[in-house]
């Protein structure tokens, strides 16, 4: 039915469907076209994993913030000005030498938008969603994330209301870095738990 190779065609049925829904909602006066543009712009260009990286960097340098983050992540993240859809019930998972945390959404694509932006394609793919539960160590290794044998892997399913953010272990040798420089070291994948820093 689908014809992905056919990029040249004018519009696909799904594209038409979106356009029809948009027209319907706008024509009925339910949605404001300006607001639609603003939201598109926001999610295409503004929201991204940099917010999460700032949260992580702050937690690395500020012990009191780290405690607040681990106790009430939603509030601690809001302190830095980050909140919104898919960010209401945040829990931060602290990686340690003994425990490596990794996040999946087995049923759909739940993901903490305010701190990580929108989920990458692989996060939403059926193989990631099923295999991360079934064989996390194998899959992590395939993804280039080597977790030491003695380190326990904990897989967290975001399919409840909770959205998770992994707090990676601060890289060795980063003692002299500023908060901003630390934030640049934090990767999106490390905050999902599919990479280690």
């Amino acid at each position, binding site marked *: 039915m689908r014809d992905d190779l056919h990029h040249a065609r004018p519009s696909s049925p799904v594209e038409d469907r979106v356009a029809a829904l948009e027209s319907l909602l706008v024509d009925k006066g339910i949605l404001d076209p300006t607001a639609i543009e603003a939201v598109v712009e926001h999610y295409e260009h503004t929201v991204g994993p940099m917010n999460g*990286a700032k949260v992580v960097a702050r937690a690395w340098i500020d012990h009191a913030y780290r405690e607040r983050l681990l106790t009430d992540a939603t509030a601690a993240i809001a302190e830095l000005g980050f909140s919104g859809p898919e960010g209401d019930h945040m829990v931060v998972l602290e990686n340690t030498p003994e425990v490596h945390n990794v996040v999946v959404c087995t049923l759909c694509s739940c993901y903490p938008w305010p701190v990580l932006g929108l989920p990458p394609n692989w996060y939403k793919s059926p193989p990631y969603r099923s295999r991360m539960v079934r064989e996390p160590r194998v899959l992590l290794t395939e993804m280039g994330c080597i977790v030491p044998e003695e380190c326990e892997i904990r897989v967290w399913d975001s399919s409840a209301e909770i959205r998770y953010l992994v707090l990676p272990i601060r890289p060795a040798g980063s003692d002299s870095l500023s908060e901003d420089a630390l934030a640049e070291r934090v990767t999106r994948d490390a905050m999902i738990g599919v990479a280690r820093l």
Partner: protein
Amino acid sequence: MRTADWREEAFFEPTVPRSNGAAVFDAPWQPRALALAVLSVEAAGCSWDDFRRHLITAIGEDDGRQYWDSWVTALGAFVAESGLVA
């Protein structure tokens, strides 16, 4: 190395979130579908979970379907159920 399952090119993208990370859309209608969902949920006075329920159903119906196609199916179902356009 990578298994054939990882058909998504995004798997190889750079991951340092210096700016906004990788593109998460591969066609312009996708961010529009996202925006319509976000704003419709707000307009209907619903919680995001009300949309998510439809998304889970749509994905569950056909897990081989492209993600954003399922999203649009969920959006249609949400709008119908919400009574927004009744």
